């Protein structure tokens, strides 16, 4: 698995011909960000495509529609839409419509000293906050999940990582339509979020991988309590989403992944849990993989349940005992 690119310092691409201004920008960013300067947009593109900076600062000139067009085309690509652009506008710059200048924020050149560094930091922070939110649940997605995990690994934190998904979700979706399936996804996200946040208001995290897969990060000692509560809440609320007759008989008739007609039990939730104190991780992928294995294990049991990874913890205890 490729090592993630998490440079300690943020990268800011500066597009500016004006040497005095470039120096001022460099000075302001020094210490907190690494700046890479280009004199125009075309020469910067190659670098931007390959390194995905945290921010682009562009000094807009009065009579340069060419650069603005390139910037707009660049921002129109969904791959790069996310990168925030802060424009430095010249005095008396005339802008009829924001559609003709695709930027996230601006400052006036004459206010540079006063505003630049604050705006630059705000721009970067805002774009981090809104990284890929799942449209159904409004929960953060994979990029944020990986970042949250990696940051904790780098800080050497002790934490637990839970990976949850629903059992018999697909037949439910087929039986009642994706509208009702979406409702179930939404309530699942809300339940996990609120239970995790009520156990640990600060420093916990809930993400939506996609489909019916959710993850959470919580202090190590709280993971099993949280999982047990999520299961209890899910099991109590899920009957609401079945037609009364189906729930009364305890199953629905639908089709499996191969298209074969079959009966399926009422949905349940399976959770796999991994704790970092059990062993050393260096990469988020390792935790995700282990948690996915635990979830798979949990899915082998009928109904809702959680399974914590204990194998490694016991091995370690065993080893330390032997050493004594």
């Amino acid at each position, binding site marked *: 698995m490729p090592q993630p690119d998490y440079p300690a310092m943020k990268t800011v691409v500066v597009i500016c011909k004006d040497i005095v201004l470039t120096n001022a920008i460099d000075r302001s960013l020094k210490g907190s960000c690494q700046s890479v300067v280009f004199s125009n947009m075309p020469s910067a593109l190659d670098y931007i495509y390959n390194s995905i900076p945290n921010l682009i600062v562009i000094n807009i000139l009065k009579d340069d529609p060419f650069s603005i067009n390139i910037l707009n085309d660049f921002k129109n690509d969904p791959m790069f839409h996310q990168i925030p652009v802060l424009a430095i506008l010249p005095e008396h710059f005339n802008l009829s419509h924001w559609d003709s200048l695709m930027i996230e924020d601006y400052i006036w050149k004459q206010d540079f000293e006063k505003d630049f560094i604050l705006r630059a930091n705000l721009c970067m922070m805002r774009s981090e906050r809104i990284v890929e939110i799942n449209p159904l649940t409004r929960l953060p997605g994979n990029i944020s999940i990986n970042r949250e995990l990696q940051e904790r690994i780098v800080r050497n934190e002790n934490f637990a990582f839970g990976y949850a998904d629903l059992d018999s979700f697909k037949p439910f979706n087929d039986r009642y339509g994706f509208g009702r399936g979406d409702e179930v996804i939404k309530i699942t996200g809300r339940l996990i*979020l*609120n239970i995790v946040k009520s156990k640990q208001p600060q420093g916990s995290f809930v993400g939506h991988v996609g489909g019916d897969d959710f993850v959470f990060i919580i202090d190590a000692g709280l993971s099993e309590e949280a999982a047990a509560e999520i299961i209890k809440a899910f099991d109590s609320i899920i009957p609401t989403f079945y037609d009364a007759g189906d729930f009364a008989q305890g199953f629905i008739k639908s089709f499996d992944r191969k298209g074969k007609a079959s009966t399926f039990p009422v949905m349940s939730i399976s959770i796999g849990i991994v704790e970092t104190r059990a062993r050393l991780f260096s990469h988020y992928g390792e935790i995700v993989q282990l948690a996915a294995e635990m979830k798979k294990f949990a899915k082998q049991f009928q109904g809702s349940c959680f399974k914590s990874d204990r194998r490694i913890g016991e091995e370690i205890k065993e080893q330390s005992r032997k050493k004594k």
Partner: protein
Amino acid sequence: MSNIDQKLLRHKVENINTLPTVPTVLKRLSAIIEKPRITMVEISNFISNDPALTSKVLKMVNSAIYGFPGRISSVSHATMLLGLNVIKGLLLGVSVFELMQKTMNGLYEHSLACAVVSRTIAQKKGLKDPEEVSVAGLLHDIGKVVLMLEFQKEYEAAMKEAQTKRISIFEAEQNQFGATHAHVGSWLAEKWRFPRNLIEVMEFHHRPALAKNAPLETAIVHLADILVRARGCGFAGENLVPAVHPAAFELIALAEADIKDVLKEMENNMEAAEDLS
């Protein structure tokens, strides 16, 4: 005959955004909000003892914002789905109805007792979610709160008419407004996208035979309403005890011992509620 235009009445009802509670609840509310580490169970128990708070929470969780309208009819589910922060925010916006305090307090007590009795009967009947029936019992009369809030004078006239003519408040409302609290409550519940079964109980708790989707739940709240009146618990607008609908009684089919248990449960709970206030 009523001199209130029906369209106007409905329009006024549907424009209501929140229902007021009684002063004792408001007093306990601030203690709840300020408590630093309150659990979802605690806060949900507190909410499910008040019709105004319960309706507020159900309105929020069934709104389009969350994307599952008409699904949630239990307070504990609503609390888990909204989360502590949203719930606390909602509770901050609760107001008190300053007028008709005695009637409001009486109605509050009646509703609370009705919730307890409905839940107990639902448990005895082995219903899958007794809490939903309890919520229906708690909210069955919110139409009365709405009418008092919007038409205080007319409602006082209706109560007076019920008293002097010795008719039910249901009939007196029909005379005064051309509609009853059952209509009014169900209009609001519909507007707030409450689940269909809950709306049905609110609409038909005086005429349980009309319930199509939730006949048993409706019959339970119908019976609970009358049992609570018969026990003289709280005040529902007049002092008559109407007859139980025979079909509803048969549908529930409680033994005499069961009814005794139910009444006992009600008294225990009402004592506990008084201790709190």
